[in-house]
Every structure is written in C-alpha cells, then in structure tokens.
C-alpha cells in the first residue's frame, strides 16, 4: 500500500490542489490564472517525460502546442468540424508528426538535438504565421465556442474544471508510464544509451515513444489554452514559448510530476505578481530564474524534498 501511495502521491497532491483552489480564489481572473497554470502544467508534465526521464532536450515543443491550438481554431472555422473532433484530430496530428520526425531527429544528441527540434518548432511556427488565409497570420484567429449537446461550454469556472481534470488525467498517465517497462527503459536510456542498448533495450524506440507522448501532451495543452482564450495567435507556437516550457520543467525539477506544475506556476504567476515592479519586471524575472537555479540546482521540488528528507533523517 505505501508503495502505491508513494507512486500516486503526486497525483493526490495535484488533485487536492485542483479541488481546493476554487475555495481560495475569489474572481474569474484568479480562476483564469489557475487555468493557465493547468494548461501549461500539462504541457510541462509531458515535456518532463522527454527531458526528465528520457534525458532528451526539445526546443520545439511549442510547435506541437501550436498544432493542437490551431486545429481547434481552423477545423471548426473553415471545415465545419465539431470542436471536440477537431481537438482529437489536432492531438493525433501532433502525435503523428512527432512520430514521423522523431525517428531521424532523435538520432541526434544533446545540443544537436536541441537545434534540430528548434528548427522543427520554427518551421511549424512559420507555417502558422504565414498561411494567413487559414490561420489569420500574425494577428491570430478566433476559436469557435464548443457546444456539447446544446450546452455552450464557456465561463471561467467551467474551463477551470475541464483543464484541472486534464491535468489530473495527465499526471495519472505520466505516473503510470514512469513505472511501466517503458518508463524503466527510458530511465536506462537517460543514464547511458550504450549501456541500455547492451541490456537489450530498443533505445530508439524508447526515445521515440517519449517524444511522441510529450508531443501529445503539448498538443492537448495547446488546444485547451486555445479553447480557454477563444483566440489564438502564432506566439503559442513560437521559439520563446518553447524556451518557456523548457524553463518550467527545469525550474520545477527534472523528473518530477509535481515539479513540472510548480515550474508552470512560477512562470505563469510570477509576471502577474511582478507587475508591482513596473519596468523592473523583466530584470526581476531573470534574476529570480538565476537565483533559483543556483540555490536549487536540481529544481524547486526535488531540492525541497531533499531538504525535508535530510531534516527528518
């Protein structure tokens, strides 16, 4: 039992958070900020599978988010497809694309992989930016409201629960995956690719699985964000957003599900808090990032866990 409990502890923590927050948050604005944390957190959990467990960097994951987001914008607007079906199609498209480009790209290592994924993300962003007729170009486009059985899905609270639900679902799947044979294979790959190969692990396959799964997470997060905003702009697929996602994962703590959400919280909530600094906002964000990484170099959550363990021991 304790083993099972330990395994699902991250999920329980997140579940408690999602359920408790509405009692603390007063306005739709605060609910929205929480919702943004959930969508970003979902993407970060997925990216964490790739970075924290398989040990592979991606500087292009915002591209997959962009595919999910623009699928729910373009397909209903131009082709009359139901938003829910568009959601599914977008997520599948991102997964398939990741599967297709993953094979050649994942042969690259370290910084070379970073630049290749960067290129891939830039290509997606460029298509979105320039296919003005379809995507509305740099000014973005509206996302039609979703209608389910005659009920229009809208309102801050509704989307809060939907995104919260997806976050929990994402966390459950991630926790299960990490403890599955695939998860163990990924960890072996992370430690040493050659050693893993000697042990008979299909390294390429394990990495490809992680890459595809993380793309599916990113596309889901992107599509949810598009629904919440009812509007998308190409920023969502841009390089800076990719960097932001990587930063979330590393700040929160590589390999930690709760860490990914904590990282997302930091980057989403901090700009809201730092508005009191006016023009010093960016300087403050940069310095905080440096400070956190120097003093909590394993990331916020693993460092705190280490501290607590160290004290109780």
């Amino acid at each position, binding site marked *: 039992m304790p083993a099972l409990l330990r395994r699902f502890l991250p999920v329980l923590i997140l579940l408690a958070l999602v359920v408790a927050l509405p009692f603390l948050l007063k*306005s*739709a*604005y605060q609910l*929205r*900020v929480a919702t*943004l944390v959930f969508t970003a957190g979902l993407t970060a959990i997925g990216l964490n599978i790739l970075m924290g467990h398989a040990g592979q960097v991606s500087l292009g994951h915002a591209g997959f988010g962009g595919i999910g987001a623009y699928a729910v914008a373009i397909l209903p607007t131009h082709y009359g497809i139901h938003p829910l079906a568009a959601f599914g199609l977008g997520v599948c498209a991102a997964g398939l694309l990741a599967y297709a480009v993953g094979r050649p790209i994942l042969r690259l290592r370290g910084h070379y992989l970073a630049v290749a994924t960067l290129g891939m993300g830039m290509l997606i962003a460029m298509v979105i*930016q*320039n296919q*003005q007729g379809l995507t509305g*170009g*740099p*000014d*973005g486009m*509206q996302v039609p409201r979703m209608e389910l059985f005659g009920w229009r899905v809208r309102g801050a609270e509704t989307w809060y629960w939907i995104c919260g639900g997806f976050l929990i679902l994402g966390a459950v799947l991630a926790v299960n995956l990490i403890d599955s044979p695939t998860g163990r294979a990924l960890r072996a790959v992370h430690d040493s690719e050659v050693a893993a190969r000697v042990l008979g692990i299909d390294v390429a396959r394990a990495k490809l699985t992680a890459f595809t799964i993380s793309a599916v997470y990113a596309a889901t997060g992107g599509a949810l*964000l598009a629904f919440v*905003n*009812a*509007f*998308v*702009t190409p*920023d*969502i697929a841009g390089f800076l957003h990719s960097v932001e996602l990587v930063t979330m994962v590393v700040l929160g703590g590589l390999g930690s599900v709760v860490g990914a959400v904590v990282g997302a919280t930091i980057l989403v909530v901090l*700009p*809201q808090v730092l*508005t009191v*600094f*006016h*023009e*010093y*906002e*960016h300087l403050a964000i940069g310095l905080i990032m440096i400070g956190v990484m120097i003093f909590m170099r394993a990331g916020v959550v693993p460092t705190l866990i280490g501290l607590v363990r160290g004290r109780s021991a």
Partner: protein
Amino acid sequence: MTCHSALKSLLGGATLALALAAPAVAQETIKIGAVLSATGPASFLGDPEEKTLKLYVDRINAAGGVGGRKIQLVTYDDGGDANKAKTFAQRLVEEDKIVAMVGGSTTGTTMAMIPVFEDAEVPFISLAGAIEIVEPVRKFVFKTPHTDKMACEKIFDDLKKRSLAKIGLVSGTGGFGASMRKQCLAVAAKYGVEIVADETYGPKDTDVTPQLTKIKGTAGVQAVVNADFGQGPAIVTRNYRQLGITLPFYQSHGVASKQFIDLAGEAANGVRLPASALLVADKLPDSDPQKKTVVGYKTTFEEVAKQPVSTFGGHAYDGLMMVVDAVKRANSTEPKKLRDAIEATKGLMGTAGAITMTPTDHMGLDLTAFRMLEIKNGDWTLAN
C-alpha cells in the same frame, strides 16, 4: 521613475482611503485601465502609448481632474503576447474594476481582449490598426487609429494621381505588415493598381537587399510600397538607396515618427507616406482646425518624454481624450453610460483628425484625416 509611480499609487491609495472614509465629501477616482505592449516586438507602439497616457493623466490630475475627480491609471505590459493581454484584461475588469480601457497596442492582443470587455460591458478603446476590430461593430469596442486599409487607399490614390499603376509591394511578416499587405492586395484593383511583385521579410531581418533586388528585376514596376512598422522600414529604405533604385517609394503610417528619418538617414529623402497631421504640426497653416491639438500634444510629449513624437503615442492621447470627453458629457463613470457617450462623440479633435462616432462607425475617422507627406532634407513636408 518607480519611486515616482510608487508614490503615485500610494497617493492613489490615500485618495481611495479618503473616499472610503468620507464618501459623501470626496469624489471617487476615475479608474482607467491600459494593457499595452510596452516591451517585446511591439514596444515601438506600446512604449510611446504608455508614456503618453501617464503624462496626460498626471497633467489632467494636476489641473484638478475631470469634473473634480482624479483619474487613476492602471497599466499592464503584455509584452505583445495575446494570452497575457487577455489575462491582464480580465484583471483590469475584475480586480481593478476599471470604468474604461484605453489600450491594446496590436491587433492580436486587441482581438484576444475583446470578449473580456464585451462580456463585462466595459468600453474598450483599442489603439491597434486592423479593420477587423471595428468591423463588424461590437457594442463596447472602439478604436482610434486609421485602419491599414485607409493607408493603402491613400497611397493608391496618390499613385493614381501620378499615373503609376504597377507596383512592387514589400511587407514585413509581423502583425502590422501582414495585415496591411492583405488590405492592399484587396483594394488594389479598385484603384486600378496592379501589384506585380510581392515580397516579404521577417520582423527581425537585418537585410532586405535580396527581396529588393528581385523587385528591381521585375519588369514594369513603377513604384514600390513598403508596409511595416518599427525598424524594418528604415532598413528597407537604406537598402533601397544602396541598390540605387530610383522609383517612387512609399512607406505606410507605420513609420510615422521622426525616428524613422533618424534611422534611415539620407535614404529617407523622397519617401512618401500617409500620416496624420501630427508629424507636420508646425507646418500646418494656422487656419487648420487640427493645428492647436497636434502642436499641443507634440510639444508636451517631446518636452517630457525626451524623444520624438510618434503617431502611436498620439493614438493613446486620442483614446484618453475620448474617455475624458465622454465622462464630462455623461457626467457619470458608469461603464455603460460611458459607452453610450463615447458612441456619441462628435467632432472631438484628436491627433488623428476630427472624431465623430456613430452606432455603425466605431472609429470615426475618414480619409481626409490622412495627409500625404514627403520627406525632404530630413524633414516632413506636405506633398501636393
């Protein structure tokens, strides 16, 4: 600066406390919100806009406020990101409880914020260019700048007068350039203009000679139009001169700041562009009805901000004045009444021209508000 604004918010807080303590005596402040792209790729727009708003709110308050009530300005920087803009918009409406919003530097951020203000029924005066903002008309959404469609029309009108029909278009792929390119392609036929070369460049590109070389090599080009804002047009203009192209060269209202001439240097001479009267404020005849407004804004802004005036800051001025004017006429700060008053704005003289709103026109400007300027000897002059 921060010390100053901290002091200001402190003062604002004190005023508020006073208002709470003696509601019958002290008047409530008029809370106006602004989400601007003060940093990021559109800081070219957001920075002068923010400076203008702060500067004029301070001046209005120093002069006793509007009808005895002080204005309190709440600004947020969205960095050009539509997602952030929407969050801040919601914060303005729900946490800050503003009565009107003057802001939204880009079309992308504006479009993302529209539903928030429509739902909350708070008037929203956008400072962005694209026509989609006011077409179709939305009940609570207004805008101050001329549309990019009008810029295209003004340029094509001038081309027609000079009997130039075949043009090369070179536009930036950022929001401003892409939107204007679309509008220019759409209205070209109406003016008998044929776009024979259509090139683009990225918002951060530092060299556009390959694109211009291609246009130069296109048969039949009689003039070149550049649709973009920021540093791009300055680079295009310098490249244009470097390649020795001598065809008439048009820029858009996106470069309407003295800074463009400083950046483009010698190469700027001979460039024509449609812009508001603001740029040629001191050259307007005294009989011009806009003269007083534009000279006043230009002098004030340049004195305080210590940088050349731009039409973008002017848009913010116009937006703020529309709200102030509406508060006076409505004699209320109830958002819905303000909206009605804004829609009834009539003949308000702004930097962009005389503004007259109607229920079917939430911009209130016509083509006459645009002047065709030509740069000569490093300064603006009125063409024709």
